């Protein structure tokens, strides 16, 4: 956050933003914002009148000149806010654009795009068409978006993710998508181009961060209607005043009517509305998430249900051994010893975790495999076991049924002979029954049982457990306070899923989930009017990603997944979904807060402008000058200046966003209503009074 704050007004951004704020005075661009357009119309009108008075000679020219000046400043400040918000994205886009123009591609010309054909021609990256196949060798930039069809390579994706550690991209599977502009560091791959020129990922990213493709979101449209409506209300309020004044036997100068009008219409939110939207997108980009539309960001704030994959999001990717459960008659130490020996050469995370547990729980040190004269028996899909053979003894660990099957064929005479055992293990059928019982208990608790046997004797079961990520329970509690329901998606059986769900504290789970189940779940939630967010990376996630209101595709995922989602997470971190929701909420809150503030400001402005305006008609109305403003001119000028300066004062808030806290809607509303509602009523009283004192001191009015 501090990094952001500092860069908010950095010199590199200020220059272009200042220029941009003048350029944006063009009425053709301002007409998209009804409030500002109206301000420009009245500012232009009063300027023309001022010039006329200047030539013809009129009274109070210094006063009207200052008002007009501040009207134009109001517009410039509003434009500045938008230009500044855009500027931050533009700098990023510029860097992206540079990489794109420099690229060339090695387009394969042979009929066979496979490993054999190496004939290629060098063409500019921008001339590639969908379906072209290019060769990318170590050191080359990948010329456009595509899918790896052959080979495996480490790729530096820093250009888009900012993360310098290389990632692996290979053909087939869920890591086949590559992005134009990233660099192959080692090996070579063949890439089939999947994006047409101008619609690549980088192109879209440039358009997004520049705000060029920003369309108004549904809430923004509704807010614009409200603001236009309020502007119209104040047109009626101000336009009727000349008649009222003539009834009272006087006239009100146009400049005063314009001043009242501009201070009353919601210029503050009108000025900052588009900056808030751009800044929201920008915040996501800084967070390494690309939203394909502002609508998606807004929808993120509205999400009711969050679908989260168990593995990688809720639990660590790997299971870990947490317990040794021997059968009756077998000491735990023996089971631990056997399991450790069987796992010493097992490089899988599960195997390593068994060694770690044996050491931590029983002080069994890792032994040198070579010294034991041991041979490692690797896991195979047929045996569904792995193990070790040493000194005539054989230890196996693996799927419960596989291990039981392996011991039933063991000759009874040699059973347990490989090692001197000081105990009499239970008879075999009894032991297998017990093993099954333990295994079932472990499975019910959400764990994975791993049976261990030594020389045909069943020793017990290792409890492998899904490890729930640290702090995830608190995150879910936080989500619940936000009113968001979490649903865990897993391929596990319902019993195991229920146990993990309970441990992680999710609200619901979907066990043995197929892609169709996911899709059905999303549709079911949506039928109740709920908004659903999910993330995914595989091609089979694509339908669900497309169906979800917020579908976050992992950058490591397949092209299909990335096309289907409306956001792409460049870091491929599924837990980010939670932060994305927070950013969406922040965007909506900032809009609401500044709208409330803007409308609440009107109370004080009336008290500043009205008594001054009607002074010549009814001096009695000075009683309404509750702020004790020095003179009618200083009062009106102060209100106009406050109205302009408040825009500048609120730019940091608009760009940074109102802080979101997961405290529940009621508490959040109370807090924001107090700050922006009540604060919005009171702040201008103080602000206008201060400006009035300054103006009087400077003899400006």
């Amino acid at each position, binding site marked *: 956050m501090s990094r952001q704050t500092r860069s908010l007004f950095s010199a590199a951004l200020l220059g272009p933003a200042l220029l941009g704020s003048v350029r944006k005075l063009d009425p053709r661009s301002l007409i998209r914002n009804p409030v500002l357009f109206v301000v420009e119309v009245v500012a232009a009108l009063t300027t023309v009148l001022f010039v006329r008075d200047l030539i013809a000679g009129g009274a109070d020219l210094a006063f009207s000149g200052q008002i007009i000046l501040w009207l134009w400043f109001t517009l410039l400040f509003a434009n500045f806010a938008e230009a500044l918000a855009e500027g931050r994205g533009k700098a990023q886009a510029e860097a992206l654009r540079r990489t794109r123009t420099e690229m060339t591609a090695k387009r394969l010309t042979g009929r066979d795009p496979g490993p054999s054909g190496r004939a290629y021609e060098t063409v500019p990256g921008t001339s590639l068409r969908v379906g072209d196949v290019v060769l990318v060798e170590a050191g080359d930039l990948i010329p456009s978006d595509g899918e790896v069809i052959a080979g495996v390579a480490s790729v530096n994706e820093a250009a888009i993710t900012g993360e310098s550690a290389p990632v692996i991209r290979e053909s087939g599977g869920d890591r086949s998508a590559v992005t134009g502009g990233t660099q192959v560091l080692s090996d070579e791959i063949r890439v089939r181009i999947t994006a047409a020129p101008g619609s690549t990922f980088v192109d879209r990213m440039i358009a997004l961060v520049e705000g060029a493709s920003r369309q108004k979101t549904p809430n923004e449209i509704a807010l614009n209607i409200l603001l236009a409506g309020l502007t119209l209300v104040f047109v009626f309020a101000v336009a009727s005043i000349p008649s009222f004044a003539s009834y009272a036997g006087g006239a009100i100068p146009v400049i005063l009517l314009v001043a009242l009008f501009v201070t009353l219409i919601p210029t503050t939110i009108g000025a900052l509305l588009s900056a808030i939207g751009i800044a929201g997108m920008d915040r996501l980009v800084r967070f390494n998430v690309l939203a394909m539309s502002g609508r998606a960001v807004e929808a993120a704030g509205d999400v009711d249900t969050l679908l989260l994959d168990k593995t990688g999001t809720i639990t660590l990717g790997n299971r870990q051994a947490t317990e040794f459960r021997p059968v009756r008659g077998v000491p735990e130490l023996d089971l631990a010893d056997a399991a450790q020996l069987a796992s010493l050469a097992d490089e899988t995370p599960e195997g390593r975790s068994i060694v770690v547990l044996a050491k931590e729980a029983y002080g069994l040190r890792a032994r040198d495999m070579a010294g034991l004269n041991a041979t490692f028996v690797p896991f195979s899909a047929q045996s569904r076991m792995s193990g070790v053979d040493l000194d005539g003894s054989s230890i196996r660990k693996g799927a419960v049924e596989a291990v039981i099957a392996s011991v039933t064929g063991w000759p009874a005479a040699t059973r347990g002979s490989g090692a001197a055992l000081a105990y009499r293990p239970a008879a075999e059928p009894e032991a297998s029954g017990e093993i099954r019982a333990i295994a079932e208990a472990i499975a019910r608790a959400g764990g994975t049982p791993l049976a261990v046997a030594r020389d045909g004797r069943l020793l017990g079961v290792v409890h492998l457990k899904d490890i729930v990520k640290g702090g995830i329970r608190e995150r879910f509690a936080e989500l619940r306070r936000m009113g968001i329901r979490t649903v865990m998606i897993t391929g596990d059986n319902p019993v195991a899923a229920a146990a993990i769900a309970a441990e992680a504290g999710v609200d619901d789970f979907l066990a043995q989930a197929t892609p169709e189940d996911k899709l059905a779940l999303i549709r079911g939630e949506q039928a109740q009017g709920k908004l659903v967010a999910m993330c995914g990376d595989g091609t089979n996630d694509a339908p669900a990603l497309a169906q979800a209101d917020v579908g976050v595709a992992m950058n490591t995922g397949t092209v299909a997944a990335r096309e289907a989602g409306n956001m792409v997470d460049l870091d491929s971190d599924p837990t980010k979904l939670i932060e994305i929701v927070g950013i*969406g909420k922040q965007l909506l809150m900032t809009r*609401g807060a500044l709208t409330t503030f803007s409308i609440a400001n009107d109370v004080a402005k009336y008290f500043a402008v009205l008594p001054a305006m009607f002074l010549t008609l009814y001096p009695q109305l000075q009683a309404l000058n509750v702020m004790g403003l020095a003179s009618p001119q200083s009062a009106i000028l102060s209100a106009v200046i406050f109205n302009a300066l408040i825009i500048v004062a609120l730019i940091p808030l608009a760009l940074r966003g109102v802080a979101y806290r997961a405290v*529940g*809607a009621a508490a959040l509303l109370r807090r*924001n209503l107090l700050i922006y509602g009540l604060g919005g009523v009171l702040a201008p009283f103080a602000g206008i009074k201060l400006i009035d004192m300054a103006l009087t001191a400077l003899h400006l009015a």
Partner: protein
Amino acid sequence: MTLNGWMQIALYGALVLALVKPLGLYMTRVFNGERTLLSPLLAPVERGLYRASGIDSAQEQTWLGYAGAMIVFNLLGFVLLYALLRLQAVLPLNPADQAAVAPDLAFNTATSFVTNTNWQSYGGETTLSYLSQMLGLTHQNFVSAASGIAVAVALIRGFSRASSRTLGSFWVDLTRATLYVLLPACMVLTLVLVSQGMPQTLRPSVEAITLEGARQTIAVGPVASQVAIKMLGTNGGGFFNANAAHPFENPTALSNLLQMVAIFAIGAALTNVFGRMVGDERQGWAILAAMGVLFVAGVAVTYWAEANAHGVLAQLGLTGGNMEGKEVRFGIAASALFAVITTAASCGAVNAMHDSFTALGGLVPLLNMQLGEVIVGGVGAGLYGMLVFVVVAIFVAGLMVGRTPEYLGKKIEAREVKMAMLGILCLPLMMLGFTALATVLPAGLAGPANAGPHGFSEILYAYSSAAANNGSAFGGLTANTPFYNATLAVAMLVGRFFVKIPVLAIAGSLARKPTLPASAGTFPTHGGLFVGLLVGVVLIIGGLTFFPSLALGPLVEHFAGAAGQTFAAGG
């Protein structure tokens, strides 16, 4: 201010609150088409009416169908009433031989009664035949009120229904509102009022010889029946020109109290109907609480302003408050209370001369109407008017909880905001626009009786009253002129239908949406926070627009009066 005065006000509040739940339950059952106490008696009548008019009571309408039916019905009602007024001279039940009503006055009066405004440019006993009063005005008193209730019920259904294209049937709602709610209540109230000495007769005026020997014509007529519906239906059109200040139209303190309760009874109970239909009575109470806060504040200001002599009045040696234009049998408290009630609701009956109120005392009734009469309001109209403000309040503040704003499980989106703003916009346009016109045109300037800010207030009050469909007059303004008759009629039409139609559009759009279950992320709308928010939005968005006009009218008059300054008559 006296303890007695405040106790009268508290008693009034308690009576209204006591009626909310039972009446709310009864009306909920009526509009849900369920059996009620009166069903055995009225159900056959209801069925007969549908059969006679060829209505299929099971046939529901979309919002457009509902709005269309409402407009056609009101249009026909207007034509009928206009014809009746123009032809009354040749029609029966005209013992006083009243002449045909002039075209501009007939247009104004027909509009006035069809829109539930009951603005009276005419003097009842000097202009209208009994037939015009009974068949024309009393009839419209019933159906214009029922049509307001129907629109409110349709809007409630918009909130309570999920994924539905229809809002119910206008014909059925209209019939039920009249048959089950207004008619029985009026019958009871009429009898009670008669017991208080109110005339109910078709005989001609009574000729009397006064003590001085002069001949006096004492107007009588079917008064009680019309007074009952004028209050219960928040119509306000009096049988007599002096309205509820006339001894025959409001004979006793009890009749005064009952009339005041009758004004608020149905409007307040509709908030309970709302709560019941959306499945959470607290939602209804929250709306009523917001209305209550605004109401009590208004009563306090008016009572305080009337009960104390300030500024110029004090300098003139006046003590004990301002009794000018008030009936001695009601006193200051009941007059101030009546004035606030009648303008908070869209009734417009008056038991005192609002024109004679102090500047601030007169400001409150004016502001009540300018807020759109959302403080209990006209039957139906008050609730739907308040719900329009709810839409705006929820939209602005709801964003602050970080979600697309929702109310009762319905997302508030662009269409609802657009329609709500349309409904809100038309009031300042009519009130300020026509006042601006009248204050520069000679035809308009000829109207007010007083000079200076008070004259301005008279004009502003007239257009505020018309556009808000109140119908009460500040008095002092000569409004029976072609200019005022025409412009006031336009204000009444726009103020009625340009609110009703957007409201039905909102209802239609809401009904189509699914209802989202509430969660911890949903903005709670039944607590004090919401009530405070709603009051703030009503005052800032509804009220601030009128600040300049109020400053130039009652406020300047108040400050000038406080400084001991008066404005010369004439001019």
